[in-house]
């Protein structure tokens, strides 16, 4: 039995995925400065955006664009739209918007952050060429720790494309002192090992493996570096060095099982089988779900056999076979449960309804057997992104279901409008028929003409009120009557004098207030003009509304009629897509469990062969029969 064949899978697993810092993308990071609002409806979108209601924000933004409510901040709104699409994982739309908008007119900080977040989304969804292009669109440096993340992301994109030489060159050129530098050293070490450059990788991983760890995350990375280097040294047949490295790994931690296994192999390679037993026996006290623990059930009897303890070896192989069989049955049950379709619903049952967004993370897993087997898979980008898609599809189905109920109300509203219009027609016709704006305008023109004449002729009497005019007419009648009287008659003379005085008094009064009256009449004329203008406008509007209102109602009815089948068809397609996504995720999960089953089958076969070999030896070598189990 060779340590390399059994543990090659573990080494490959350690080197297959470059590691990355905890991936928290905050799409709001595209807009870090407070936004100045010059369009109220842009502010409305921001109000929902800042509450992480990305779906609602996007709907409102689109509505405001259609209704022409964004006049001052069109460009900011479009950029925000790109960020919102990104928040919902709509990287295609976000990419299209950013490509068209992110030119030199946009502030560097906003442009660079937008490209960075887009690159992250594309990386998460394995659009590596697009991610590389987006990263290349960043000009200058990103602020603070984002620059480290950018360098790391660029290296990962290269590593995933197996362009190790370029990744190495990039990481070697990058100087940084923050946590991302540690990830960079690890990834660089991985890249070098994959290029069989262990001597170049060793100082990097060794340095990382001895570094102080200020956080749990860094401690886990340090352990990972030690395990990767330890196994690489084992593969290079340098067990003594491997042992020193592996002994640094914490006894309790995510890498401890692999480290214990590797330690055992390091001892075993130097024929220190008794020493190898210590870490391997420790592994047997741990959860059988772990591949290293499963392997220990073969490694321990291997060591016993090397120490000529054939009975113990055989007993351990028999025990292992029993455990592997039970585990295989549990895996079969889990595969059946996943194929029956309950996995995703069980995973999402505690999920907060309504919370959406690309950066949503699954917070809690249900305690079901299948989820225990799938921890590593559930943490992978592929599964997480698929889960997000599934979740978004279900949320959108729910959203369309709500709209479906509203459509019935829309029909009622339209019917109410039709009825209201019919009911209003008689009153409207009566009101419009009773008002003759043309006649009023004609009256206004007459009035203006008279006023102009009064002003031209300084006709103070023209501005007399009704009582004054009556008085004036009376005086004129009196004077007319006295005009034919005997001029020598004293009595008539007196009367003519009185009439003249009266005329003078009335004229004086009218004359004194002439300017004020003229000003007042002109003012009233202006007010009349305004009122007539309004009346004309309203007459036109009402006339138009009589024609437009029913047309508008029918347009709205047509839109409702068109949207209803769209809604139904889209709901059905969402359901189909959600099913397809569910089936895909189930197939990925089943593939993972089948792979675990295959591993168990391999271990089972090896245990059976080894056990058979022990029985053979016991049967053919006299005296050894005592040490072998029946």
């Amino acid at each position, binding site marked *: 039995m060779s340590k390399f064949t059994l543990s090659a899978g573990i080494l490959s697993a350690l080197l297959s995925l470059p590691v990355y810092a905890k991936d928290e993308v905050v799409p709001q990071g595209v807009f870090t400065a407070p936004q100045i609002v010059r369009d109220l409806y842009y502010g409305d979108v921001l109000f929902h955006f800042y509450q992480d209601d990305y779906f609602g924000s996007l709907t409102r933004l689109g509505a405001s664009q259609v209704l022409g409510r964004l006049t001052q901040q069109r460009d900011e709104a479009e950029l925000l739209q790109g960020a919102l699409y990104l928040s919902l994982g709509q990287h295609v739309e976000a990419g299209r918007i950013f490509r068209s908008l992110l030119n030199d007119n946009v502030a560097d900080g906003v442009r660079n952050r937008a490209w960075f977040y887009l690159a992250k989304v594309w990386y998460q969804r394995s659009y590596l060429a697009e991610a590389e292009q987006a990263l290349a669109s960043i000009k200058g440096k990103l602020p603070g720790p984002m620059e480290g993340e950018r360098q790391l992301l660029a290296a990962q994109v290269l590593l995933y494309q197996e362009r190790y030489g370029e990744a190495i060159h990039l990481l070697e050129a990058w100087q940084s002192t923050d946590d991302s530098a540690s990830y960079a050293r690890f990834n660089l070490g991985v890249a070098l090992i994959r290029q069989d450059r262990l001597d170049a990788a060793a100082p990097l991983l060794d340095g990382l493996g001895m570094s102080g760890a200020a956080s749990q995350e860094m401690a886990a990375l340090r352990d990972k570096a030690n395990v990767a280097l330890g196994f690489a040294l084992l593969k290079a047949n340098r067990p003594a060095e491997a042992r020193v490295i592996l002994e640094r790994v914490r006894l309790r931690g995510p890498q401890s099982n692999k480290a214990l296994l590797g330690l055992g192999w390091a001892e075993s390679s130097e024929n220190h089988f008794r020493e190898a037993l210590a870490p391997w026996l420790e592994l047997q006290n741990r959860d059988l779900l772990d591949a290293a623990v499963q392997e220990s059930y073969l490694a321990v009897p291997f060591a016993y056999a090397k120490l000529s303890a054939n009975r113990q070896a055989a007993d351990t192989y028999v025990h292992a076979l029993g455990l592997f069989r039970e585990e295989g049955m549990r895996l079969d049950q889990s595969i059946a449960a996943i194929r029956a379709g309950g996995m995703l619903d069980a995973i999402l049952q505690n999920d907060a309804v309504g919370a959406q967004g690309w950066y949503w993370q699954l917070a809690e897993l249900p305690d079901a057997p299948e989820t225990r087997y799938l921890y590593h898979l559930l943490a992978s980008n592929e599964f997480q992104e698929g889960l997000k898609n599934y979740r978004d599809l279900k949320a959108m189905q729910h959203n369309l279901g709500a709209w479906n109920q509203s459509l019935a109300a829309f029909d009622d509203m339209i019917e109410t409008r039709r009825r209201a219009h019919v009911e209003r027609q008689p009153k409207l016709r009566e009101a419009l028929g009773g008002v003759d704006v043309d006649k009023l305008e004609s009256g206004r023109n007459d009035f203006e003409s008279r006023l102009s004449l009064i002003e031209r002729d300084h006709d103070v009497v023209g501005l007399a009120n009704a009582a004054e005019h009556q008085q004036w007419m009376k005086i004129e009648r009196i004077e007319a009557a006295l005009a034919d009287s005997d001029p020598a008659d004293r009595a008539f003379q007196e009367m003519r004098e009185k009439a003249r005085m009266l005329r003078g008094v009335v004229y004086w009064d009218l004359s004194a207030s002439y300017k004020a009256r003229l000003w007042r009449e002109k003012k009233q004329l202006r007010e009349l003009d305004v009122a007539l203008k309004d009346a004309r406008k309203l007459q036109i509007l009402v006339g138009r509304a009589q024609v437009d209102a029913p047309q508008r109602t029918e347009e709205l009815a047509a839109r409702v009629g068109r949207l209803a089948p769209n809604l139904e068809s889209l709901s059905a397609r*969402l359901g189909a897509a959600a099913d397809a996504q569910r089936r895909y995720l189930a197939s990925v999960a089943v593939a993972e469990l089948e792979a675990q089953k295959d591993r168990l089958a391999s271990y089972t076969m090896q245990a059976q062969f080894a056990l058979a070999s022990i029985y053979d030896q016991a049967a053919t070598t006299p005296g050894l029969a005592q040490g072998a189990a029946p």
Partner: protein
Amino acid sequence: MTRWILILAAVLASSLAMGQDVASNPGSAFKGLDQDVQSLKKEVLDLNRELFVLEEELLFPANTQVAVFVSMDVGTFFSLDSVTLKLDGKEVGNYLYTEREAAALLKGGVQRLYLGNLKVGNHEMVAFFSGQGPHERDYRRGATLTFEKGVGAKYVELKISDRQSQQQPEFLIKEWE
């Protein structure tokens, strides 16, 4: 026998290693599904937008529409709890703010508090703001606006800002053209 075991184990291990490499790199199946989901989600977003616009046009036609917004400044002197809105003496809105909503206002968001219909002509709007004022005392203030509703949508903003000179919050109602 031992050599035979070794060969078998090597074949199994290498196939396991390859299997893990393939499983760790998301394939074309995922991308194909992802692209389908992307375009489907876009259609849903477009439909949502159309339905949202339609609903608003049915309930609040542009000619009679009035929209009232709330905005908040730095928030040094006032922490908003609720707003009550009255139009022509009738209460049309009474909104309690969560911490999240208040934070969104402070970041620069503007809340559309009320959307309704009004006839053409003069109207009176009164808004009451409740919250915590300077020194964390309970604070309630009002603001009034008389405005003319013409033909076309009317936008009004209730602005809460800090008046540094008086170390007090200021409550204004602003008409938008």
